[in-house]
């Protein structure tokens, strides 16, 4: 097929014949819709629309996660051994999810609704998709969690329980000490609490809880797994579905 080979078959007839075959092949192909400029432009616009919304949604959830982890950090000193050793995931879920919900639910829905309106502006025929998308935003399954007020109550309750258990231990100790009495017992209680924080931190308890928080954010909010789907994965699924159908409307 090289340049020299081409020279070897320099015959007008041969070239004409090859051309005719090519033409016959071209005309015999299955007829498909011409890729008009408008069609290509529209499909590229839909792809760009999908990019914009998914990048914005991921960034929004990640920002919320950063703030939620910062808040979570302030709670670590109040975590008990039980929290860290027996069920760090439950502790992370209890305190990460409400923060994430507060920071993502409305803002994410706003992003989706705005994007649905932009979709309509690409082509009026997409109004139906846009409306369906707005409805679908209400169907996003955010992790079930307690309200912010309840979370605050839980946290206070947790503080109290944690404090009481430490105090009870200290009170027991004070009873054994007998005559040293309640005042000394309380002093011991305060001391044991401070020591507990130090021990927990040194033993990597906080690290375990931080790891649990990171996993919670990954699995429930930003991950790409399918069972169950994270919030971001649900958004991606919805947007992909709309985009793939919308691209056919042209």
């Amino acid at each position, binding site marked *: *097929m*090289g*340049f020299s080979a*081409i020279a070897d*078959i*320099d*015959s*007008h007839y041969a*070239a*004409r014949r*090859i*051309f005719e075959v*090519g*033409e016959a092949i*071209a*005309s015999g*192909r299955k007829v*498909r819709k*011409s*890729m008009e*400029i*408008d069609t*290509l*432009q529209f*499909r*590229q616009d839909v*792809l*760009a629309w*999908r*990019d914009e919304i*998914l*990048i914005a949604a*991921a*960034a929004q959830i*990640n*920002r919320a*996660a*950063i703030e*939620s*982890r910062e808040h979570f950090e302030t709670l670590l000193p109040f975590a008990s051994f039980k929290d860290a050793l027996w069920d760090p995931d439950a502790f992370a879920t209890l305190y990460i999810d409400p923060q994430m919900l507060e920071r993502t639910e409305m803002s994410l829905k706003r992003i989706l609704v705005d994007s649905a309106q932009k979709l309509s502006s690409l082509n009026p025929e997409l109004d139906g998709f846009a409306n369906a998308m707005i409805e679908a935003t209400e169907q996003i399954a955010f992790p079930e969690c307690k309200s912010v007020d309840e979370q605050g109550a839980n946290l206070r309750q947790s503080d109290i329980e944690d404090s009481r258990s430490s105090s009870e231990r200290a009170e027991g100790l004070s009873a054994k000490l007998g005559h040293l009495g309640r005042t000394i017992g309380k002093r011991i209680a305060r001391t044991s609490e401070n020591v507990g924080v130090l021990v927990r931190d040194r033993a990597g308890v906080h690290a375990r809880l931080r790891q649990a928080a*990171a996993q919670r*954010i*990954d699995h429930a*909010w*930003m*991950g790409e797994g399918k069972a169950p789907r994270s919030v971001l994965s649900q958004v991606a699924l919805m947007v992909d579905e709309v985009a793939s159908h919308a691209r056919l409307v042209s």
Partner: protein
Amino acid sequence: MIDALAPFLIRGIPPEARAGLANKSLKLFGSVIRNSNGSIAYHLQEAAPLANILVTGNPAALLGQVASEVVQISQNEIIRRGVGRIEQGLSSLNDLAAANLAFSAAGIGISVAGFALIDFRLKQIERSFDEMSTRLDQILSSIERVQHDRVEHDLGEIRGLAELFEESWLLTDSGRAESNWRRVYQDGAGLQEIFSRRARIALDRDRDDYSSADPFLEAFALISGLRIASLLSCNEVSVARRIEEDSTHRLLQLTGSISLIDLVRNALPDDLEKGTRRWQLEQAKACEAMRPVVARIRTREQLLATRTAVLPSLEAKNVSPRDWFAQTRSEDAEAIVLLRD
């Protein structure tokens, strides 16, 4: 100049087009500039001076080179004209923000601006192959049992066809010229298929890294454009349109669903923890890095899909594609000429 073209041919970018592109009432889409209602306002066509600009690659060096050449013959007027010509050509590119288009293997309009331009684009593709030769050899050898030198050989085939295409313009025997152009169309079909298949393999095998497929896609776009240009040089309009449609369809099957978010996800480090400032930063960096890649993909699709968009306008003006090519090949000042629709 062909009389029928005179009222419509614009050398360089007219002020109204420049203003429209700036205020977004006009939009560049492949080889056409569109009005806000979607109608075509202008068709772009690369002209011979574009080759000089791209081959040099460095405007400053280019100016120096032109000056150096003409100083030798001590003709100050030629210096002035030469420098002015290059500056004018560069101005057209800058006005259109068309550097991406100009560098693209698909080319602006129907590429008939000379072999030097095609050769420049081929060398860019070869450089891309060289830069990732080890990786490409792994991809190719595992599937096709071919190595890097096979790719070089196939690019050499494209270069041979491009030379044949170009030389045919110099023949006085138009029948022989048409015979050659038809061969370019025919022999290019196999190369189109080869590079399309390799691009598909690279995309399938290396999903995390689009870049390994890019040189194959560029080669596919280049040979597709050359085939279409060959057919139109023979004034074979209907087959040229079919080849454009078929090539665009194949290209869209390869890249039509590649989007920014997919490339960004693939570009993020594997060990990146979600919900962190580092994640935020890495996503922003990946977006920044991948936007030009996606723009290049989209531009390539647009350029291939608008390859024959000028034909209805030429038909309305009763000008044949070959005459249109001849006109743009004779341009000696502007890198790009426009045809008002």
